[in-house]
C-alpha cells in the first residue's frame, strides 16, 4: 500500500524485518520441541541449537561384575563394551575420578599390582590381572563423541511415570463439558437479548458488557466459600468436576452472550419477522433459523472457550485443587516446575504435551478464531 514501486529497497527491508520477527516469535517454541525429543544426557550438557552436531561427553560407566571374568593364559580378564551397543566413539579414558582423561583410547593403562585396563575407540574394554578379580565391579571414566540422538523416551517417561497421561484425561474431562454448556446457555440468552422485547433488556445488555471485564479474582473467595458450604451440605467435598464445569460456564458466559448477541442481532430481521408472521414461536425461530445461521459465531466462541479452559490454571487450582487425582495438565506442569525444576527433558516434554492440543485446534480452526476476535472487540 505504502510502497509505490514494488521492487524498492524498502520492500526487501520489509521482507527481512518480518522474517526476523517471525524467527524471534517461533524460536522459543521450536527450541522447546527440539529439546523435548533429544536424548536427556545430551540435553543437559548442550544447547538445543547444537542438536544436530556430535557432542563430547564425560561419562562414568561401571564395568561388568568380577564374576564374569575369564582366565586367558595366566591373566584374569573382564571384557565388555562401555558404549553398550550405542554408536559413538571413545577418545579418552581413565580409572580414577581425579584423572578421568588420563589415557588415549587404545592405550593400555597400568592400574596397580600388574593390573591393566585397555579401552578401545569402539568402547571395548578389557581389565586384566595376574590374580582373580574380587569385590565390586570397577569404574571406568571416559570421554566419548556421541552422535546426535533423537528419542521419544522423554515423552514415554512423562506420560507414564510423571502422571501426564492421567492429567491429559483430566484436562479433557474438564474442557469438553465446560465448552459445550456455556454455548447452549448463552445462545438462548443472546437470542432473547437480540430479538425479544421485554423490559430491562438494555440494562441486561449493559450488565453483560460490564461483567465482561470483572476480574476473576473478585469471584474466587466468595465462590470458594460457597463451594465449601454446598459441598458440606451434600457431603461430596467442594472440589468436583461439576463444580468446575459450572464455574467455567459462569466465567465464560459474558463473552459468550456478548459475541453471540452481536452476531445474532446482525442477522437479517426480515427472516425472523416473516417466520413470526407465519406463526412460528420464538423457540421454533431459535431452533430452526437462528442456530443454523449462527454457526460461525458459535464456532468462534467454542474455540475461545476451549483454549481458555484448556489453558486455565487459576480456576483449576482453586476449584479442583492440587490433589494427584484431579490435576489438569496446566496444574501438573506447575507441579513439575516446582519438583523437577532442573530436569529439562521432563519439563520440555510435559510442556509440549500441554500445548499440542491447543496448537492443533489453533492451526486447524484459525479462521473462526480470528473472526471471533474481530467480532469481540472491533464492533
Amino acid at each position, binding site marked *: 500500500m505504502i510502497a509505490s514501486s514494488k521492487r524498492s529497497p524498502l520492500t526487501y527491508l520489509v521482507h527481512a524485518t518480518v522474517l526476523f520477527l517471525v524467527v524471534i516469535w517461533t524460536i*522459543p517454541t521450536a527450541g522447546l520441541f527440539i529439546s523435548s525429543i533429544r536424548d536427556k544426557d545430551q*540435553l543437559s550438557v548442550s544447547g538445543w541449537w547444537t542438536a544436530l552436531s556430535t557432542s563430547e561427553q564425560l561419562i562414568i560407566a561401571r564395568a561388568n561384575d568380577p564374576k564374569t571374568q575369564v582366565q586367558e593364559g595366566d591373566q584374569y580378564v573382564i571384557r565388555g563394551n562401555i558404549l553398550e551397543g550405542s554408536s559413538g566413539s571413545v577418545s579418552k579414558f581413565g580409572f580414577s575420578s581425579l584423572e578421568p582423561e588420563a589415557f588415549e583410547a587404545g592405550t593400555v593403562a597400568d592400574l596397580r599390582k600388574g593390573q591393566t585396563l585397555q579401552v578401545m575407540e569402539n568402547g571395548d574394554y578389557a581389565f586384566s590381572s595376574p590374580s582373580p578379580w574380587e569385590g565390586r565391579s570397577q569404574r571406568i571414566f571416559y570421554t566419548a563423541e556421541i552422535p546426535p540422538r533423537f528419542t521419544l523416551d522423554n515423552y514415554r517417561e512423562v506420560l507414564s511415570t510423571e502422571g501426564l497421561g492421567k492429567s491429559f484425561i483430566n484436562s479433557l474431562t474438564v474442557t469438553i463439558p465446560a465448552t459445550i454448556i456455556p454455548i447452549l446457555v448463552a445462545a438462548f440468552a443472546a437470542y432473547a437479548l437480540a430479538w425479544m422485547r421485554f423490559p430491562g433488556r*438494555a440494562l441486561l445488555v449493559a450488565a453483560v*458488557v460490564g461483567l465482561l471485564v*470483572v476480574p476473576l479474582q473478585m469471584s474466587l473467595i466468595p465462590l470458594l466459600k460457597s463451594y465449601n458450604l454446598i459441598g458440606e451440605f451434600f457431603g461430596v467435598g467442594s472440589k468436583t468436576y461439576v463444580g468446575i464445569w459450572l464455574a467455567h460456564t459462569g466465567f465464560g*458466559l459474558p463473552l459468550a452472550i456478548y459475541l453471540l448477541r452481536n452476531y445474532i442481532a446482525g442477522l437479517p430481521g426480515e427472516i425472523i419477522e416473516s417466520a413470526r408472521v407465519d406463526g412460528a414461536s420464538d423457540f421454533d425461530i431459535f431452533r430452526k433459523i437462528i442456530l443454523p445461521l449462527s454457526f460461525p459465531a458459535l464456532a468462534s466462541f467454542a474455540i475461545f472457550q476451549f483454549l481458555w479452559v484448556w489453558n486455565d490454571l487459576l480456576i483449576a487450582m482453586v476449584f479442583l485443587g492440587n490433589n494427584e487425582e484431579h490435576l489438569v495438565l496446566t496444574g501438573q506442569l506447575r507441579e513439575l*516446575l516446582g519438583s523437577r525444576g532442573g530436569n529439562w527433558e521432563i519439563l520440555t516434554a510435559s510442556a509440549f504435551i*500441554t500445548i499440542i492440543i491447543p496448537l492443533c485446534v489453533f492451526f486447524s480452526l484459525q479462521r473462526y478464531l480470528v473472526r471471533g476476535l474481530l467480532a469481540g472487540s472491533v464492533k
Partner: protein
Amino acid sequence: MAQLASALVTMILGVLGCAVYFYGSNILLDKIFPTKNRPAQQVASNLRIANSIRPWLFLGPAVLLLTFYLFYPVIDSIRLSFFDRSGEEFVGLSNYTWLFGSDEFFESFRNNMLWLIVVPTAATFFGLIIATMTDRIWWGNIAKSLIFMPMAISFIGASVIWKFIYDYRSGGDAQIGLLNAIVVFFGGEPQNWITIPFWNNFFLMIILVWIQTGFAMVILSAALRGIPDETIEAAVLDGANGLQIFFKIMVPQIWGTIAVVWTTITILVLKVFDIVLAMTNGQWDTQVLANQMFDWMFRGGGDFGRGAVIAIVIMVLVIPIMVWNIKRANAEMEGR
C-alpha cells in the same frame, strides 16, 4: 478410561438437561397458556402473557449463572474485605490499613504499574508494525499465523518455554539457555536473569508481550484493511512518504481500534497471575497483585479478608475501562 466414560456420560446428561429445560419449559408455557382452538379474546391475552414470560425462560439459566458466579461474588468480596481472615468477624477498615501499610503491596502495585505501561504498549506497537508489514508481502499470512501462534499456548506453558530460554548454568558449564548462550557467544558474563531485581520484571513481561502481540496484530490488521484506499492514494499524490502516510493517514484512522486493543490487553495484564507464579512466585521483587491475592487466599489456611482487599484493588483499577466499555456499547445500541 472409566473417568473419560463417566465424563462423557455426565456431559451428555448435562447437555440433554439443558436441552430438556429449554424445550420442556417452552412446551409447558404453551400448555399453560394455550393459543390453539380457543376464543380469540383468550388467545390474545394468552399470547401476550406467554410472550412476556418467554424471554425469561430463555434468559433464566444465564441470569442465574451470572448472578451466582459474577454478580453476587463481587458484592460478597466487598463485604468480606471488612471481615477477618475467616470472614466471620467484622474488623472495619483494618484490612485496608494493613494493605496500605505493607511493603509487599507497594512492591506488587509498582510492578503491576510497570506491567500496565510496558505490556500493552509493546504488544500494540509490535502488533501494529507487523500488521502493516505483513499486509504488503506475499507470505504475510504465513508470517501472521506464526506470530499469532503463542495465543494458543497457556501462560504456564509459555512460562516453561521462556524459563528454558532464561536458563542459567553456573561456573564454566555450557549454557543451555538461549539467552545466556548468546551473551556468552558475544563474550559477556552469563546471568541468572530472573533473579535480578527490577529488571527481572521485564523478562517476565516479554512472555506476555510474546503471547499478546498476535492478538493486537490480528485486530489491527483488519482495521488497516478497512482504511479507504482513496485517503492513501490522495496522500501519495500529494507527495507524502511512507512514514508520513503511516503516522498521519493510517494511524489516525484506526485510533478507535488501537484503543480497544490497548484496553483489552490492559485488563489481561491486571489479572496476570500464571506467569509470575510459574517463573518466580513473586520472589526477587516480582510480586504482582493477582499472585499476591492468590497467595493470601491459601497462605496459612487462607486469609479471606486480606485476599478480598487485594481483589478489590484490581477491581478498582478495572472500573474506568468497564465504564468506557459500557458507554461504547450503549452508543452502539442506539446506533442500530
